[in-house]
């Protein structure tokens, strides 16, 4: 196939992006290394935050591909190729998980990030992890060996699904047989429940188990809804950029944008619904094993004054991540005017990062006070930016390399005409 001018441009851009990725990842890794040396978990959390964000984007995109296949959706066909390009990011994100495995297996105090990983570690209150009743109950699941096996399984499954969808779609470009549209549909029907389960367990393993005492049945759904939200926002941002560059000109029109925005609104409501439900059920039941998690995010442990997380929760999440996008996206004009939609998509991306902060960063730091701990306060560090930009650039590099090789839309898809002539 003759390479278009756009594709040559993308190739050149991808080299730059790779340079940025390597530079920032090195800064993030240096932070990781320093954190391990000094016994400070915060730079490791930065690395985990970057991974959480870009993994959520990837999983959201993977789920959208599969949803579109199983519902035989026509309008989305012109967008699907952009998501398929991004699927090559999973193996790369798997590489960024390796430092955590090194920490678990080869460091003297493997419990630096996940306390359950080190039975000898001390908990606030003077108990060892091994003496903790909840640890003893959960150790069958939360142990380094099973954890590693699961991580390999999760990344393996997501990478396999992503690469399989890519393969079918790219084969169809040169070989327009019906099977290349049918097989991914069957695979999607199996892939949706599998991805739902793996993303739930991944969220439990990597983020929820930071506080292994906690119980919540909503956590996987929270990660899922966050993932779909930022995947949609990322698609809108990406398409706005491509549209401006003339890459999707004539394909991507107002009706496609309207549908994406409607989905963004729907998942804003869904995110709000499940996030509030999680809080509300725990608040209502008022059981200490569950309330401590929100307690840490509202009060200072000694004097019950509000800590920084209270303001992050009220202004960042309730107002910023729910009410603002919800009310904004109710308006038809805000959904279809490209610049307006771009604004709220960037907004959602930023506030989802704050949501990840809220879920991942707070923890108990040893202290001399009466309860034996202080809550780690809200902060944004250099390493947060470094891993967020580094991993994002890595994903973008994977996307650009694929976009430089393959066409921007699946030209032989049975539904491509329907997608091109899609009206509101």
């Amino acid at each position, binding site marked *: 196939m003759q390479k278009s001018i756009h594709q040559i441009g993308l190739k050149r851009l991808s080299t730059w992006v790779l340079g940025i990725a390597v530079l920032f990842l090195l800064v993030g890794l240096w932070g990781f290394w320093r954190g391990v040396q000094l016994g400070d978990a915060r730079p490791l959390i930065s690395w985990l935050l970057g991974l959480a964000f870009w993994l959520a984007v990837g999983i959201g995109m993977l789920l959208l591909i599969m949803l579109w296949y199983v519902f035989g959706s026509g309008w989305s066909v012109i967008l699907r190729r952009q998501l398929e390009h991004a699927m090559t990011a999973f193996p790369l994100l798997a590489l960024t998980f390796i430092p955590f495995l090194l920490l678990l297996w080869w460091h003297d105090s493997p419990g630096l990030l996940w306390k359950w990983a080190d039975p000898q570690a001390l908990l606030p209150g003077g108990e060892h992890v091994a003496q903790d009743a909840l640890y003893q109950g959960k150790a069958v699941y939360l142990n380094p060996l099973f954890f590693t096996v699961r991580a390999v399984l999760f990344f393996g499954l997501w990478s396999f699904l992503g690469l399989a969808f890519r393969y079918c779609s790219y084969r169809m470009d040169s070989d327009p047989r019906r099977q290349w549209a049918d097989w991914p549909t069957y695979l999607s029907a199996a892939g949706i429940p599998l991805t739902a389960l793996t993303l739930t367990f991944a969220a439990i393993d990597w983020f929820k188990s930071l506080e292994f005492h906690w119980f919540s049945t909503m956590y996987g759904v929270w990660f899922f809804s966050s993932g779909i939200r930022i995947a949609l926002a990322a698609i809108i941002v990406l398409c706005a950029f491509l549209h401006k560059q003339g890459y999707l000109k004539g394909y991507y029109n107002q009706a496609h944008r309207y549908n994406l925005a409607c989905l963004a609104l729907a998942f804003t409501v869904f995110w709000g619904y499940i996030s509030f439900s999680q809080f*509300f059920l725990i*608040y*209502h039941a008022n059981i200490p094993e569950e309330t401590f998690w929100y307690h840490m995010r509202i009060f200072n442990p000694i004097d019950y004054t509000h800590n920084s997380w209270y303001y992050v929760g009220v202004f960042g999440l309730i107002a910023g991540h729910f009410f603002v996008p919800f009310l904004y996206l*109710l308006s038809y004009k805000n959904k279809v005017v490209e610049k307006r939609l771009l604004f709220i998509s960037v907004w959602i991306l930023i506030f989802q990062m704050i949501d990840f902060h809220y879920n991942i960063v707070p923890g108990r730091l040893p202290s001399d006070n009466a309860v034996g701990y202080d809550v780690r306060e809200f902060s944004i560090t250099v390493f947060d930016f470094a891993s967020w930009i580094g991993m994002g650039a890595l994903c973008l590099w994977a996307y650009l390399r694929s976009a430089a090789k393959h066409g921007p839309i699946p030209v032989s898809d049975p539904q491509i005409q329907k997608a091109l002539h899609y009206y509101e």
Partner: protein
Amino acid sequence: MPETLVKPYALTATFSELKPLFAAVKKLRSQGFKHWEVYTPFPVHGLDKAMGMPRSVVPRFTLLGGVTGFFSGLIMVWYMNAYDYPLTVGGKPLASVVYPFPIAYELTILLAAFGTLFGMFWTNRLPMHHHPIFNHPTFSRASDDRFLIAIEAQDPLCDPETTPKLLEQLGAEGILWVHDS
């Protein structure tokens, strides 16, 4: 019935092709007609835009219903639980936005749905048991193989002399007056 008592409802014209229909729609719109309607056997993409039809106002009723529901939910719980008969349940505060939220949220949805439904009925002037356009002798063809344009007699631009001629120039086929009996 004496001829003089029957009011004309609309001047109608049919088209069998989309192209002349769109040309006619554009012409009528540019002439400044306000009270007119096009009946088609299937949804025609872009016709509403060509006619210059504004977007539906129903979403405003939805929003109004939703906002009313949200605040009435909060006020209701405050009135019952904190004002009329103060009652502490499970150590929770008497007045709060946290525990009545499900009530406010459910009422938001309920009244937003009512707003949508009744707003739609109101804007469409439903229920309507009869419409004068059904007096057209072959109106059923607008559900089959003809596009039908109806220019209402109440439109100030609808003139018994010039408007039929205008429609004829635009390639309309059966031009006739429909009466409101």
